[in-house]
C-alpha cells in the first residue's frame, strides 16, 4: 500500500495505463502544464495541448476513439461542456445504438467539477445528473484517492464514452489554481479522507456501476457521491451523538447506477436521504427515489441538493451547496 493524494492517484493510474497501452492519448487545453509529468514521460504526441475549441477537440475525441485510439480528452471544467455538447449528446452517446451495436467509441472525458471555493456559477457546477440523463454515456465521480485511480482504469477499460468527474475540493492542484492562487490566508472545507489516502501498489479497475457502503446504519440511509459522501459521513458522526444510526452509500457511478446496494440498505432502514451537489430538479435525487419505488419499497424520503445558480459569495455559496448542517437537519426531519 502507498499513500497518495487524490490528484496523484489519478496521475499514477493514468501513467500505469498509458505505459501498458500506447493507444491512450491525452488532449485538451493546457495539458502540457496540467499533466506535466505525463507530458515529459510520454511526449507531446500522447499529451497534446489543444486550442480553446471544445466542440472541435471533443468531437475529434469521438472520431479518434472510433478509429482506434483511446482518448482521455480534458474539458478542464465540466461547465465548459456546454460549449461542446453535440459531441457527447448526439455523437458519442448514439454511436453504439445507431451502428446496431457494431461500432463503439471508447473514450474518457475528464473534467473537474464542484464548488466550495467561491468561483461562481459558471465554474462550480457538477452536472452529473444532466450528463447521466443521456442514454449511452457513463458518468463516474470518485470520492477517495483509491477510487480515483481505480475508476480511471474502469473508465479506460469501458468500451464506450465515460465522463470522469474530478471534484476540485479533492484535487489540491485545482484548488490551488482556481482558489488560493498561492495565498495562505484563504481556507476551504476540504474532506481529509478524500484528499489523501492509501492506494494499492498496482491499480486494478473497479466494476462500473458499483456503489459502496461507506458506513453502516440502521435508522436512515444517506446516498451521495464525491464530496457529498464526506459531508454525509460528518453528518452521520454528529447524528450518532443523538443516538441515530445513519448509513452512508457512496454511489461512485451515477450512470450506470447501482440499485441493489441502495435497495438493500433502504429496505432495512426505511428512510432515504439523497445528498446531491448537483441541481435538485429532474436529477439524481429524484432518480434514486424512482428506482426504489419501482422496486416496491416503502420509505420516508428527503433530499439535500443545490437548488439554484451557485453564488460567488463564499457565505451564500456555503448555504447553497449541501453542507453538513443542512444534511443533519434534513435527516432529523425523517426520523
Amino acid at each position, binding site marked *: 500500500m502507498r499513500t497518495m493524494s487524490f490528484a496523484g492517484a489519478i496521475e499514477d493510474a493514468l*501513467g500505469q495505463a498509458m*505505459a501498458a497501452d500506447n493507444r491512450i492519448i491525452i488532449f485538451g*487545453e*493546457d495539458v*502540457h*502544464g496540467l499533466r*506535466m*509529468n*505525463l*507530458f*515529459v*514521460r*510520454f*511526449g*507531446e*504526441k*500522447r*499529451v497534446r*495541448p*489543444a*486550442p*480553446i*475549441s*471544445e*466542440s*472541435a477537440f471533443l468531437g475529434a475525441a469521438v472520431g479518434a476513439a472510433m478509429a482506434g485510439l483511446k482518448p482521455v480528452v480534458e474539458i478542464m471544467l465540466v*461547465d*465548459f461542456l*456546454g*460549449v461542446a455538447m453535440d459531441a457527447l449528446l448526439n455523437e458519442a452517446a448514439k454511436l453504439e445504438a445507431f451502428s446496431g451495436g457494431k461500432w463503439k467509441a471508447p473514450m474518457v472525458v475528464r473534467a473537474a467539477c464542484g464548488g466550495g*471555493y*467561491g*468561483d*461562481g*456559477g*459558471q*465554474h462550480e457546477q457538477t452536472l452529473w445528473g444532466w450528463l447521466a440523463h443521456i442514454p449511452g454515456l457513463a458518468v463516474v465521480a470518485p470520492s477517495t484517492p483509491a477510487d480515483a485511480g481505480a475508476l480511471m482504469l474502469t473508465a479506460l477499460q469501458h468500451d464506450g464514452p465515460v465522463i470522469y468527474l474530478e471534484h476540485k475540493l479533492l484535487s489540491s492542484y485545482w484548488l*490551488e*489554481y*482556481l*482558489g*488560493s*492562487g*498561492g*495565498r495562505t*490566508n*484563504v481556507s476551504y472545507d476540504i474532506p481529509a479522507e478524500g484528499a489523501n489516502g492509501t492506494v494499492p501498489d498496482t491499480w486494478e479497475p473497479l466494476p462500473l456501476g458499483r456503489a459502496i457502503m461507506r458506513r453502516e446504519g440502521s435508522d436512515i440511509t444517506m446516498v451521495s457521491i464525491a464530496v457529498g459522501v464526506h459531508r454525509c459521513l460528518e453528518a452521520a458522526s454528529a447524528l450518532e451523538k443523538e443516538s441515530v444510526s445513519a448509513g452512508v452509500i457512496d454511489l461512485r457511478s451515477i450512470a450506470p447506477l447501482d440499485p441493489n446496494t441502495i435497495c438493500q440498505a433502504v429496505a432495512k432502514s426505511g428512510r432515504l436521504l439523497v445528498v446531491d451537489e448537483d441541481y435538485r430538479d429532474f436529477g439524481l435525487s429524484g432518480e434514486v427515489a424512482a428506482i426504489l419505488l419501482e422496486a416496491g419499497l416503502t420509505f420516508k424520503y428527503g433530499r439535500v441538493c443545490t437548488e439554484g*445558480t451557485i*453564488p*460567488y*459569495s*463564499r*457565505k*451564500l455559496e456555503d448555504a447553497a451547496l449541501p453542507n453538513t448542517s443542512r444534511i443533519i437537519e434534513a435527516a432529523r426531519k425523517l426520523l
Partner: protein
Amino acid sequence: MGTDLRALYRLMLRSRRFEEAVTQLWEAGKISGEMHLGVGEEAVVAGVVAHLRDGDAMALDHRGTPPLVMRGVDLSLLLKEFLGRTDGLCRGIGGHMHLFSAEHLAASSGIVGSSGPLAAGFALAAQYLHPGNVSVAFFGDGASNQGMLLESFNLASAWQLPLIFICKDNTWAITTQSLKVTGGNITDRARAFGLNAAEVDGSDVEAVSSTAGGMIERARDGDGPSFLLAHCPRLEGHYLGDPLRRANMLELAGPLMTAFIAQPGAPVAERAYSLGTLLSLVGKTTVDKNWRRHDPVDKARRKLQSQKAGLDTLEKEVEAEIRLALEMAILES
C-alpha cells in the same frame, strides 16, 4: 466622454488604480475564485469605450472590470461585488467573472468566446429597435479558436450588424502560447468573413481610439460590422496567482526527473522536447515581465508629460476617487 489623450489617460488610470486596489484585496484573502485582471489591456478598452454612448452595448469576457469601470459603473458597487457582499453590483451572486449592469447594457461571461454571439444579439436589437446604437464584443486571441465566436463573425457579416469585435491579443490562451494552437492569422479570418478588419498597437491608446472610433462611426451609419485586433501585453498572467508565474522549478524538478526516466515511455528526444517546452514556458513568463516597457498607462503618461500637460491634479483626483470607493466598500462591510 472626451477622446483626447488626457481623457483617455484618465479612463486608463482609473481602471489601473482600481485593479491595483482589487489586487490588494485579493492578496489579503478577501476576494475568492479566479481574479482575472485587465492590467495591460487598458489602452484597448479605453480607446473603444471612449466612443460609446447611452444605448450602446458591451459583451465582456472574464476580464470585465476595465470596461465597466471606464463605462461608469459605480466603483463601490463593483468592489462590494468582488467582496461577495449582498449589496454588491450583482448581490454577491455573480462575482468578478460574471458582472452585469442592465443600465449600461453590459454583460460578462466566464465562458471563452461567448461574448461574440451575445454582442451579435445586442447588435440585432440595436439595428431593429434603435438604429444608430452599436454593440461591442471584447475577447482575446485564445477565444478566436472558439467556434461560436467565428460563427458570430459570419452572422454579423451576413446580417450587417452594427457590431465591433475587439480582439485583445496578448499571445496567450490561458497558459498555452496561442501561436502553438492557432492556424493562420486571426485578422485574416475576420476578413474572410467579410468583416472590415484592422490591426493596431494595443498599447497605444490614441492609435486604438482613432481606429476603433472610425469602426464605431461606420457601424452607427449602418455600414456594417468591423473587427479590430489590438496587440497588448499580459502584465499579470492569466489571473492573480498564475501558477506559471509562481512555478518553482526546484519543487517540480524531482517529479519531472522521475517522469523523464520512467519506463516505458516516449523516446528520449521527445521527452527532452517536452522538458524544454515547460522550461521555455516558465522562462517566457519571466521574460514577459519586460512587457512592462509596453505598459499602456505608462506610455500615455510619458506622451502627456512631454506635452507638459500637468498631470498632478488628474492623478490626485483619480486616486481620491478610488480611495473613496474602497473606503465605502470596506467601511460598510
